[in-house]
């Protein structure tokens, strides 16, 4: 007998050596013990990652029983539960002993008779990894050598489980490192192309932590998360996600994405309340969501220093394994690496945009300077080649020549203003100025140009005196009026000056092209202009300079515009200490 027990142990050790998964270990231990002990029913429960005790292997147990007892309720009045709770084995040799300890088992529905029972916890160090139990159809001796053998089986099983856990941990850690290394590698290959960077991240996450990944970014100065990239292992699901998210952008602070973006705290939802999610989805996208349901969601912030620049979301079907704490950490690691790549690509793009604007500007400036220069050159050459010229004609030609010179001077002044304004604040010389008088003077100066553009300018208002830098204010009104004539040719223009409390309000209303909504954000930017194809003359600096001046005067310049109807520029200036 002793020899047979030794052989059994040797066999178990051999078999366990090649068992690396929990299922394999359970089957080796339960299979061998069940047969050797002659049990009617044998079960092994192992602790899962989430802490629950799950059925790992069984013999002689009905399918119904397996289904209803897949997860062990540790509070139930059952032998194995008590063994796991207390850590003490149970050796119940006959029915009387069983019923004495567990009276409820008298009413057991198991078909096989329950005449003896052995149950033992699986310990590794301080930790209980699970338990195994065997029931017998006849009273059993359960003598010391048998107890010792079962105890040794339990010990071997626990060791094998710990080995498998370590192996699994190692394997996951390696996979995690591989994913991170791969992500870093691909991010570096994507270089500074933002689209490529985002696409890389999404693909990597969706393929490695199936099944879906989306990246949302907060545009600089924006308050809404915009969908930047999406990938799903199923292209049809991807198209649906794209449509849904594009149509329902998340505002910062609202919804799951918005909260992550606001707080910088990730959101880990291993089990999604799908009905609630469905209810929160626009009706037209519900059929898609029902077709590709979401079981788990992970949302992590993309952080650069203490700013949140966006979010990465991973989600998966309910049939896939739940996201674990490790998945959560992995996604945050990926996000941390990605955030810098995204930020770099963004800065690079902004830099490229600035450079393009500057290059365009230089080319426009060249063109703008050349037009009056051409006129100047031709006018001077004509004067030189004319054999004899009448005095009144000469005066006319010289006046024209002077006008070209003034135009060149105005352009050069604008260019120098840009340099000065870019370097620092404007130096202002405030004096008492009547805004109405100044505005009317400027309108007078523009009469001829307005007539040529078929614009009738009407002045309204009363005298408003304030402390302003006359030449700078002149520049602002000139810029705004000049634009009104340029873009409102053929239609009347109204200039209005009025006092409103402690402010002076100057409005210039044209009935021209209007400003395209897409251009409204940037018309006050340097080198920007709403009319992109450069068919209108000018440096595209006027409004930028005007805003700098109005800012320096402590005022505000705003506009209202409707495409095809016209534009009203509104300049509000504090009167100052008059």
């Amino acid at each position, binding site marked *: 007998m002793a020899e047979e027990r030794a052989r059994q142990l040797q066999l178990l050790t051999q078999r366990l050596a090649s068992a690396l998964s929990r299922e394999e270990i359970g089957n080796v231990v339960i299979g061998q013990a069940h047969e050797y002990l002659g049990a009617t029913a044998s079960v092994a429960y192992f602790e899962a990652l989430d802490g629950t005790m799950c059925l790992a292997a069984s013999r002689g147990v009905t399918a119904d029983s397996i289904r209803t007892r897949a997860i062990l309720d540790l509070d139930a009045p059952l032998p194995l539960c008590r063994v796991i709770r207390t850590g003490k084995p149970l050796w119940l040799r006959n029915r009387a002993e069983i019923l004495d300890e567990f009276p409820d088992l008298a009413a057991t529905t198991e078909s096989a008779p329950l005449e003896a029972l052995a149950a033992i916890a699986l310990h590794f160090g301080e930790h209980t990894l699970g338990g195994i139990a065997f029931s017998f159809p006849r009273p059993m001796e359960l003598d010391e050598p048998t107890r010792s053998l079962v105890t040794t089986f339990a010990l071997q099983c626990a060791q094998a489980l710990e080995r498998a856990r370590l192996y699994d941990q190692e394997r996951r850690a390696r996979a995690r490192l591989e994913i991170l290394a791969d992500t870093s590698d691909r991010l570096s290959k994507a270089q500074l192309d933002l689209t490529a960077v985002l696409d890389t991240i999404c693909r990597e996450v969706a393929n490695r932590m199936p099944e879906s990944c989306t990246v949302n970014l907060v545009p600089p100065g924006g308050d809404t998360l915009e969908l930047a990239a999406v990938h799903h292992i199923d292209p049809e699901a991807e198209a649906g996600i794209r449509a849904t998210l594009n149509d329902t952008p998340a505002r910062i602070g609202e919804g799951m994405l918005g909260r992550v973006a606001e707080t910088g705290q990730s959101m880990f939802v291993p089990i999604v309340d799908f009905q609630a999610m469905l209810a929160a989805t626009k009706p037209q996208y519900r059929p898609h969501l029902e077709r590709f349901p979401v079981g788990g969601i992970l949302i992590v912030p993309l952080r650069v220093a203490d700013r949140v620049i966006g979010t990465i979301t991973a989600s998966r079907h309910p049939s896939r394994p739940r996201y674990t704490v490790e998945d959560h950490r992995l996604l945050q690691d990926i996000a941390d690496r990605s955030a810098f790549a995204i930020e770099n690509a963004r800065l690079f793009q902004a830099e490229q945009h600035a450079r393009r604007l500057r290059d365009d500007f230089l080319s426009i400036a*060249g063109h703008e300077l050349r*037009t009056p220069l051409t*006129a100047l050159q031709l*006018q001077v050459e*004509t004067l030189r080649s004319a054999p004899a010229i009448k005095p009144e004609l000469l005066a006319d030609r010289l006046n*024209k020549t002077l006008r070209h010179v003034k135009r060149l001077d105005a352009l050069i002044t604008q260019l120098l203003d840009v340099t000065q304004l870019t370097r620092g604040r404007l130096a202002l010389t405030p004096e008492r100025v009547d805004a109405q008088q100044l505005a009317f003077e400027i309108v007078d100066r523009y009469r001829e*140009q307005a007539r040529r553009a078929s614009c009738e300018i009407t002045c309204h208002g009363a005298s408003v005196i304030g402390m302003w830098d006359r030449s700078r204010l002149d520049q602002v009104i000139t810029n705004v009026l000049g634009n009104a004539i340029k873009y409102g040719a053929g239609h009347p223009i109204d200039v209005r000056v009025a006092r409103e409390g402690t402010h002076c309000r100057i409005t210039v209303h044209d009935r021209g092209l209007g400003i395209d909504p897409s251009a409204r954000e940037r018309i006050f930017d340097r080198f920007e202009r709403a009319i992109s194809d450069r*068919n209108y003359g000018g440096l595209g600096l006027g409004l930028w300079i005007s805003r700098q001046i109005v800012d320096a005067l402590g005022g505000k310049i705003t506009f209202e515009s409707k495409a095809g109807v016209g534009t009203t520029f509104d300049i509000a200036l504090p009167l100052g200490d008059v």
Partner: protein
Amino acid sequence: MTSLVLIVDDDFDLRDTLSDVLQDAGFAVASAGDGIEALDYLRTGERPAVILLDWMMPRCNGSQFRSEQLADPAIAAIPVVLLTADTRREEKMAELGVETYLAKPCDRETLLAAIRKYTPT
């Protein structure tokens, strides 16, 4: 008989000066502020011997004008001298089917020589 030159340029000062120079040199001059005005003139006014065309104009620019002109058999044959500050001239000329261009700033002699190529002396 004086040859007529049509000046198409949105810049009033330049248009005015070109007109002075050409008139001083003995040409008759008509002018238009953009491509649309130019097409109107060509379809209703006296036929010019040559068109002096600016490239960048609002509403209807040089390129739009030129395609419209070429599409209209009645005016397609009128030669065009392009006036531009742009550096990609060759590309632009091929695109517009224009043989002669003037780079801004241009001097009086070059301007007159370019116009005389298309006007009987």
